[in-house]
C-alpha cells in the first residue's frame, strides 16, 4: 500500500505531531507514504469566495499528484473535501475539465488525464486497512480511557460528494476508537461544529460553540478529545488556551489526533507520536505510557 | 286576512236590504241550497287544527289560534274521538298532577294542535271550509243573522 501524501498548509507548519504520528502509524501498519512535492494550497479557502480560483488550485494539485500514479492521502478534512469536490466537478463536467486542462497546460505545462483518488487518513484506516487488521496489530489496549470524538464537518458533508459516513451523525471514527479498547463517550454536543470558520467573522459564535462543547466535556469528564481535522484541532486547543488567558476559565481537555492514540495502541512511544507538541498535555495517557 | 278582496256587490246588496228592510235583528232561516248567506259554526272540541279551512278559505276568514285548550280534554268523550288523539288525551289525564285547566301554547309550524278562529265579518258563506273540514268541527247553519247587515 502506497500513497502520495498531500501535506496541505497547516499541518507542516503547526501540527507536526499529527504529521509525525501519521507517518509512524502508517509505517507500523505497512503503509508507504511518498511526500508530494510542488503542491500549493488545496484551494479550500477560496471555494466560498471564488469558485474558479478554488477549482484551478485544486486541479493544479490533482495534476501534480497524477504524476505519482498513486492515490492521494491527506490528513486534513478541508483538503480532502476540496480535492474530492474538484475531482467530482471535473469528472462530471467535461467542458470544464477541458477548460481547466488548457489553463494548466498553458501556464504550468501539466495535464490532468486520470484524476487520482483522494483519501483522508481515516479513509485509509477504515476502508483500505480495515478495523480487523488494526485490531490485530493493537499491542496496548487503551482500557479505562474515555475519549470524546469529534469528526468535523467536511469529512462527511456534503454527503453528495463526500459519501463516507452518516452525514448527520457520523460514527466510523467512534468505531476506530473503540477497536483500540477505549470508550467513545456519547455526549450531547458531539455533532456540534467546532466553530473555527467563524473566526475573524463572528468571534462570539466561535467562542460560544467552543465553550458549549468544552463545558459538557468537562462535566462528563473525558481523557481527551479526539479529532482528525487540523482546523478542529486548532480550534479546540488554541481556543482553550485563549479562553484560559482571556477569561481565566480552564477546561484542560487534551486535544489529541486520532493517529496519536492509534500509535499508542500500536505500541509506538509517545515521543515518536509527537505528544510533546500537544499544548494541553494528556496527563493520564502520558503517565501510563511513561 | 287576504288583502285586496273587495266585496262591492255584497256591500251593495246589504245597502239595498238596509233600505227596504225594517230594522229587525231577527235571524232568518234559509233554504239549504242558498249560498252567500248563512253562518259557520265551529266546535273546538272536534278540531284537530289541520288548518285545511285556514288554507282554503278564499277570503282569509280564518285565523290560527296557537293555543291548545287543556280543559277540553276532560269534556271530550274519548271513546268517540280519534284513536291516537284518545290515547294522547288519556295519557295526559293519567300523568297529570294538577287539574287540567288553561291553555297550552302550540309552537308555530306544528299542525294538529290548537284551534282556529272564524271571522264572521269576512265570511261569504261559500261553505268551502265546511266541505273540506275532515273532522266535522265546522258545520253550516242555514240561517242569516240580520245584525250583520247593520254592523
Amino acid at each position, binding site marked *: 500500500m502506497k500513497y502520495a501524501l498531500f*501535506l*496541505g*498548509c*497547516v499541518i*507542516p*507548519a*503547526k501540527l*507536526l505531531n499529527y*504529521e*509525525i504520528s501519521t*507517518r509512524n502509524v502508517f509505517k507500523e501498519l505497512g503503509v508507504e507514504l511518498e*511526500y508530494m*512535492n*510542488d*503542491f*500549493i*494550497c488545496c484551494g479550500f*479557502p*477560496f*471555494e*466560498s*469566495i*471564488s*469558485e*474558479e*480560483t478554488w477549482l*484551478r*488550485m485544486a486541479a*493544479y494539485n490533482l495534476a501534480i499528484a497524477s504524476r505519482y500514479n498513486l492515490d492521494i492521502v491527506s490528513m486534513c478534512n*478541508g483538503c480532502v473535501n476540496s480535492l474530492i469536490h474538484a475531482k467530482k466537478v471535473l469528472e462530471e463536467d467535461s467542458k470544464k475539465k477541458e477548460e481547466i486542462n488548457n*489553463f494548466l497546460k498553458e*501556464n*504550468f505545462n501539466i495535464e490532468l488525464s486520470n484524476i487520482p483518488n483522494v483519501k483522508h487518513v481515516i479513509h485509509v484506516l477504515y476502508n483500505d486497512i480495515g478495523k480487523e487488521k488494526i485490531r490485530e496489530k493493537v499491542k496496548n489496549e487503551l482500557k479505562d480511557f474515555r475519549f470524546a470524538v469529534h469528526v468535523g*464537518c*467536511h469529512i462527511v*458533508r*456534503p*454527503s453528495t460528494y463526500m459519501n463516507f459516513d452518516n*452525514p*448527520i451523525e457520523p460514527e466510523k471514527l467512534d468505531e476506530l476508537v473503540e477497536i483500540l479498547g477505549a470508550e467513545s463517550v456519547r455526549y450531547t454536543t458531539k455533532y*456540534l*461544529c467546532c*466553530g*473555527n*470558520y*467563524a*473566526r*475573524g*467573522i*463572528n468571534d*462570539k*459564535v*466561535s467562542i*460560544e*460553540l467552543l465553550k458549549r462543547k468544552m463545558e459538557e466535556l468537562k462535566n462528563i469528564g473525558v481523557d481527551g478529545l479526539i479529532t482528525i481535522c*487540523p*482546523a478542529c484541532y*486548532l*480550534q479546540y486547543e*488554541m481556543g482553550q488556551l485563549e479562553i484560559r488567558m482571556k477569561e481565566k476559565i480552564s477546561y484542560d481537555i487534551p486535544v489529541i489526533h486520532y493517529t496519536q492514540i492509534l500509535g499508542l495502541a500500536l505500541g509506538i512511544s509517545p515521543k515518536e507520536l509527537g505528544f510533546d507538541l500537544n499544548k494541553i498535555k494528556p496527563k493520564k495517557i502520558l503517565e501510563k505510557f511513561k | 286576512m287576504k288583502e285586496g278582496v273587495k266585496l262591492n256587490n255584497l256591500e251593495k246588496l246589504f245597502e239595498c236590504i238596509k233600505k227596504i228592510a225594517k230594522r229587525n235583528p231577527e235571524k232568518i232561516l234559509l233554504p239549504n241550497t242558498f249560498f252567500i248567506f248563512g253562518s259557520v259554526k265551529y266546535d273546538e272540541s272536534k278540531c284537530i287544527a289541520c288548518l285545511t279551512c285556514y288554507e282554503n278559505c278564499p277570503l282569509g276568514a280564518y285565523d290560527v289560534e296557537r293555543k291548545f285548550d287543556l280543559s277540553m280534554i276532560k269534556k271530550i268523550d274519548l271513546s268517540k274521538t280519534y284513536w291516537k288523539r284518545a290515547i294522547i288525551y288519556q295519557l295526559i289525564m293519567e300523568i297529570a298532577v294538577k287539574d287540567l285547566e288553561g291553555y297550552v301554547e302550540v309552537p308555530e309550524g306544528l299542525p294538529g294542535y290548537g284551534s282556529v278562529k272564524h271571522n264572521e265579518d269576512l265570511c261569504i258563506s261559500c261553505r268551502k271550509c265546511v266541505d273540506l273540514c275532515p273532522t266535522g268541527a265546522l258545520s253550516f247553519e242555514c240561517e242569516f243573522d240580520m245584525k250583520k247587515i247593520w254592523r
Partner: protein
Amino acid sequence: MEVNVLDIKEEVKKLNALLCYQCGTCTGTCPVARIDTRFNPRRILNELKIKGIEEVLKMEEIWYCIECFLCMEKCPQNVKITEIFFKLYEEAIRRGIKKPQKYVGLFKAIYSTGISTGAYGGRGEPLSGMILKKRETMGLPKPKISQDAAKKIIESTGLNKLLG
C-alpha cells in the same frame, strides 16, 4: 420600503434557491443561529426570493455562515443553502460590497507563500525557518511548495485585484 427587484442570478436558481418553502429546518439546525439570532438562513432565502440578490448582498448577516453544510444536508427541498451563500460571497466580493478580513488574511498568505498557514483565525506563522528547523530535528522532510503557481492562478482569476 420599496422593493428593488433585480434578477436572481441563474446560478442561484440552479442551486434551488427558489424552491425554498420556508420550513425553517436550516435555521433550526444551524449551529450559528443557535447562538447568534441575527443569522437566519431561512430568512435570507426568503429575502433573496422576494427582494432579489442586490438587497441580500448588503446584509451583514450573510457572512456569518460557518460552512458546516448541516442545513444543506437536512433541507427537504434540496436547496443548496451553503452553496448559495458561496455564490453570494463571490458576488459581494466581485461587486466590491465587502472585503471580509478573514478571507483577505487567507488570500495574502496563499498569494505570497502558496499555502495558508493561518487556518486558525487567519493569523498564522508562515513556514518559517524555525519551523523548518524543527521539522528537521523531528526527521520530517522539507515540504516543497511551488509558490509561483498559486500566485499565477490567483492572478489568472483576478482575485488579487478584488482582495489585494
